[in-house]
């Protein structure tokens, strides 16, 4: 599903964000990515969604080398992903329904399909009753569920989340990860960056620790083993 082979990323400023990074994630896995601030976790996410290109190395997603992907093809690659961020990134003047439908409208999905998919996904994340609300009238947890609905609405095979619970209460964080785990059970591969070790401990998922741009441990959940 995902394979990073000897990937290094040096930003224009000279920062070495990833150093010879290697990782393999199989289809249907749920992976937590942890590590200290500045370790390179967000860089890993940016490379994975082709927002940045690596300085060297190869990245495969669904068997496709996304480093060599032509600019013109990038949007079509992104349609196979769902992405969620810490700051939700909802459009403030659109209601919940339109925020979710937006992802479909801008990718040429026919109206009939939009009218079917959006209520279904809002039901899935437990927001069926809030379709007409504006984001500012929702709690942080609800806003993140809207963002999650938007990420899921095009039925991605891979869901990427960069600190999705960073801005919400611990109780609600748990609910979000619980929801992600349910989605994972239906076959979606999930990569989630987080700082919250309590959360990681509560769920029995694979945990990858990044430090100074390298994978320093890879804990498979049950017993686990360490790299290097």
């Amino acid at each position, binding site marked *: 599903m995902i394979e990073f082979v000897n990937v290094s990323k040096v930003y224009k400023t000279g920062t070495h964000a990833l150093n010879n990074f290697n990782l393999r994630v199989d289809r249907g896995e749920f992976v937590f990515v942890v590590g200290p601030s500045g370790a390179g976790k967000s860089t890993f996410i940016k490379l994975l*969604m082709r*927002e940045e290109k690596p300085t060297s190395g190869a990245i495969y997603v669904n068997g496709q080398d996304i480093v060599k992907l032509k600019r*013109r093809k990038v*949007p*079509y*690659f*992104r*349609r196979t*992903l769902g*992405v969620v961020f810490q700051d939700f*990134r909802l*459009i*403030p003047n659109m209601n919940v329904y339109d925020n979710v439908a*937006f*992802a479909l*409208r*801008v*990718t*040429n999905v*026919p*109206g009939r399909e939009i009218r079917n998919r959006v209520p279904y996904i809002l039901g899935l994340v437990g927001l069926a009753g809030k379709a007409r609300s504006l984001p500012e009238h929702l709690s942080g947890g609800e806003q993140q569920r809207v963002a999650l609905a*938007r990420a899921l609405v*095009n039925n991605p095979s891979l869901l990427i989340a960069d600190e999705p619970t960073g801005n919400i209460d611990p109780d609600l964080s748990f609910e979000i990860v619980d929801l992600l785990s349910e989605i994972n059970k239906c076959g979606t591969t999930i990569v989630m960056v987080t700082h919250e070790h309590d959360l990681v401990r509560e769920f029995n998922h694979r945990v990858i620790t990044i430090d100074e741009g390298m994978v320093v441990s890879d804990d498979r959940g049950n017993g686990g083993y360490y790299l290097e």
Partner: protein
Amino acid sequence: MKIGSFGYLIREGAKNIYVNRLMSFASIGTLVACMLLIGSSILLSMNVNQIVGYVEQQNELTAFLEDDVTDEEAVEIEEQLREIENILDPVYLNKEAVLKEQMSSMGDAADLFEGLEGEENPFPPTFRMHVRDLSLLTSTIMKVSDIDGVVKVIGPDSVAEIVTSLKKAISQCGMIIVGVLLAVSLVIIANTIKITVFNRRKEINIMKYVGATDIFIRLPFFVEGFLLGLISAMIAFGLLWVGYDYILRMISQNPSDWIQQTYASMIQFKDVAVELLCWFAGGGVGVGVFGSMVFVSKYLKV
């Protein structure tokens, strides 16, 4: 691209204009002002051309030579004339040719010249030629007079020179005005688009990571530029029509004969309306679309 999303893009473009209405208003205002100035200078120079058109037909120069210039010497003078850039096809008439010409122009009274052939011929050898650019009349006449053997040069009234210089100045100013205003319009459009991009940076960012194509992200800006240009063209065209007709009416009510004559040769707006409308719409839409496309790629790193 599907029909449904085409409608969506048009709506988005129109929405941009509304959401960003202060800036849209400013850019439409500027575009209208630019087009009005351009339109007025076009109408002015068209009218000047119309009115002074006949003046330019009067572009013949006649150079009288010294009486004893021989045909061989005339060839040399002709060479010198041809070296003056503003002179067109000089034609030489020697004393006999001038006399013959005069006689034939007299018709029945030709016998008055009887006995003037040979030594008695009072006419000087002559060059006839045309002036290419009347606005350079004085200096051209001076150059011809300076040639050895030329005694006197007769040309059109110097009013012709003034009128054609004026016409030249008007059309040159017109060009400069058009150039400057085109640049101003582009800057304004660029700023409007910049602000729209800024206002919508969140949406644009989301569009990028949910997989909207570059074209899809850009099209609303294209529509915005197109509509701004088109709306401005329509307004400018209407105002110009009303304004021009008003001026014509004022002129037609003036009792002065001279002004009445001028009025008779002035252009009526409806004769040039279609042409002007095409220019305005084409220019407005062109500037709008060009501005939005060029600057959207500058501000929108897609």
